[in-house]
């Protein structure tokens, strides 16, 4: 199969995914020369590409890419189960001859790693995949084919789960098939059973069941390359059937561990209740308040006055409004921070407000919107009532949404405008070259025409 066939694989994907992948290609290739000029290795650019692609695959933006691949026939390449841990800081080369040991592929769970590849409907078995081609599983994980591979279809009726390791004594083949423990998570596909045949005798049985490849931490861990096996020696006519040892190499990335930690932390955060978070916040504030109280011993008297004043102040404020105080009525952190003089002003204002409101209530003011129940006696409040009555017509106020919250949304369209037209309160939009993100999924358009009424 030539690279053109691989590109035809992409034709089955959604248009958005194709566009994104092509943009990624453009950017990476255009930066290659610049990176070389800077003296950086290709590995850095490949790391960037891998990170970028893995993040895109993880996001729902590429969901259509994965969706379109589910219905295609799949062939499963199973990595050997006794792939062990490799040192992440070194590039490990795995050679799979008949008699040598195999390094483990670092897996999150202890189950095997199944790599499920979807085959375009137009292609028929056997399929040749040349070296250097990047394959993508149904779940989005990328694998690079290091040596030429021929994917053939196993005979019908062969058991799907019986994958056996057999060290092939065939002289022309230096590859050993992987072990064959039945995978733990398996889903039988509807298509006929394709398989990767590795050797003539121990044909890798078709594994029509496909299990999702392991979690995204693995792609982020660096370049993952398949231990792809060369074609069986029976197909000697194929020029690509070279009995080369399979190379499996994995380059490390410093961010793999960070990614794992971040994911672990986010899962922990998500599991916490909002109530727990609120309680912690309240506790922290109380602790801070206590520390402030304990700090300056010389100002103890002022503090006690402040405490009392603060208490009164808070009490009156809490009566005035319906706002729930998370820090409790006894908290006086604000009062202590401001110091003595501003606190007195606050007291004064608090008293004035209480008096004014009392006066309004007695005078039958228009403050019906507030549930005020101040019971403090006030003298001379009649003088203030006339002055404060108009500004306190809170019933006329229009409740407005907070501006920051108004513009805070996940559904964003980023585009350019050709023309924006307004006629009275009818608006017409002529937009172009836009990307829309809605519910995590991405949509693109070259032109968008819309109407809205304000």
């Amino acid at each position, binding site marked *: 199969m030539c690279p053109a066939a691989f590109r035809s694989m992409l034709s089955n994907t959604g248009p958005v995914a194709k566009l994104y992948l092509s*943009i990624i290609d453009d950017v990476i290739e255009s930066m290659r020369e610049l990176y070389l000029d800077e003296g950086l290795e290709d590995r850095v650019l490949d790391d960037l590409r891998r990170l970028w692609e893995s993040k895109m695959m993880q996001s729902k933006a590429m969901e259509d890419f994965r969706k379109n691949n589910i219905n295609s026939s799949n062939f499963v390449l199973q990595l050997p189960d006794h792939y062990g841990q490799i040192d992440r800081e070194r590039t490990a080369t795995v050679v799979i001859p008949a008699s040598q040991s195999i390094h483990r592929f670092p897996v999150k769970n202890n189950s095997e790693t199944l790599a499920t590849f979807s085959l375009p409907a137009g292609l028929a078995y056997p399929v040749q995949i040349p070296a250097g081609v990047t394959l993508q599983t149904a779940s989005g994980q990328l694998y690079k084919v290091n040596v030429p591979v021929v994917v053939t279809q196993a005979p019908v009726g062969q058991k799907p789960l019986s994958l056996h390791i057999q060290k092939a004594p065939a002289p022309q083949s230096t590859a050993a098939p992987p072990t064959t423990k039945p995978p733990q998570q398996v889903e039988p596909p509807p298509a006929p059973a394709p398989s990767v045949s590795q050797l003539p005798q121990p044909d890798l049985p078709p594994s029509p069941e496909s299990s999702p490849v392991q979690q995204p931490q693995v792609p982020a861990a660096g370049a993952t390359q398949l231990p792809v096996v060369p074609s069986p020696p029976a197909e000697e006519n194929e020029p690509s059937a070279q009995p080369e040892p399979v190379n499996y190499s994995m380059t490390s990335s410093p961010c793999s561990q960070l990614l794992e930690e971040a994911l672990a932390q986010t899962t922990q955060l998500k599991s916490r209740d909002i109530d727990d978070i609120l309680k912690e916040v309240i506790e922290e504030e109380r602790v801070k308040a206590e520390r402030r109280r304990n700090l300056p011993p010389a100002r103890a008297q002022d503090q006690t006055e402040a405490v009392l004043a603060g208490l009164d102040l808070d009490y009156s404020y809490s009566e005035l409004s319906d706002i729930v105080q998370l820090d409790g009525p006894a908290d006086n952190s604000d009062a202590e921070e401001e110091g003595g003089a501003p606190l007195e002003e606050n007291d004064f204002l608090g008293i004035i407000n209480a008096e004014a409101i009392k006066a309004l209530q007695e005078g039958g003011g228009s403050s019906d919107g507030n549930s005020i129940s101040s019971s403090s006696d006030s003298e001379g409040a009649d003088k203030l009532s006339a002055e404060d009555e108009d500004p306190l017509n809170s019933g006329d106020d229009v409740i407005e949404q907070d501006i920051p919250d108004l513009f805070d949304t996940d559904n964003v369209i*980023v585009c350019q405008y050709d023309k*924006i037209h307004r006629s009275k309160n009818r608006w017409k939009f002529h937009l172009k070259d836009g990307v829309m993100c809605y519910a995590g999924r991405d949509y693109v358009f*070259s032109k968008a025409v819309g109407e809205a009424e304000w």
Partner: protein
Amino acid sequence: MAYQLYRNTTLGNSLQESLDELIQQITPQLALQVLLQFDKAINTALASRVRNRVNFRGSLNTYRFCDNVWTFVLNDVEFREVTDLVKVDKVKIVACDGKSESTQNKSDK
């Protein structure tokens, strides 16, 4: 220089995150070059490789025009393509001037 508008997309944000993770291996100047190259690539790609049309209708909650950038917030919008219909309860549209011929350097959120 192309609009930096598209950095606040899934593609742009994932690129920025990836560059942040590799910041120890690449210089900030190089990372900036990557982003500038991304701006060019996505502007070109959207102009040349995308050929679909969308209609939408909704109610306009707010509008803002500042520095030649329109920002709208629409509610209860229906986006209609030939095959698809998507309903959104709230969407924000950020639009730069598409007819500006001079090279502009806008970044929006």
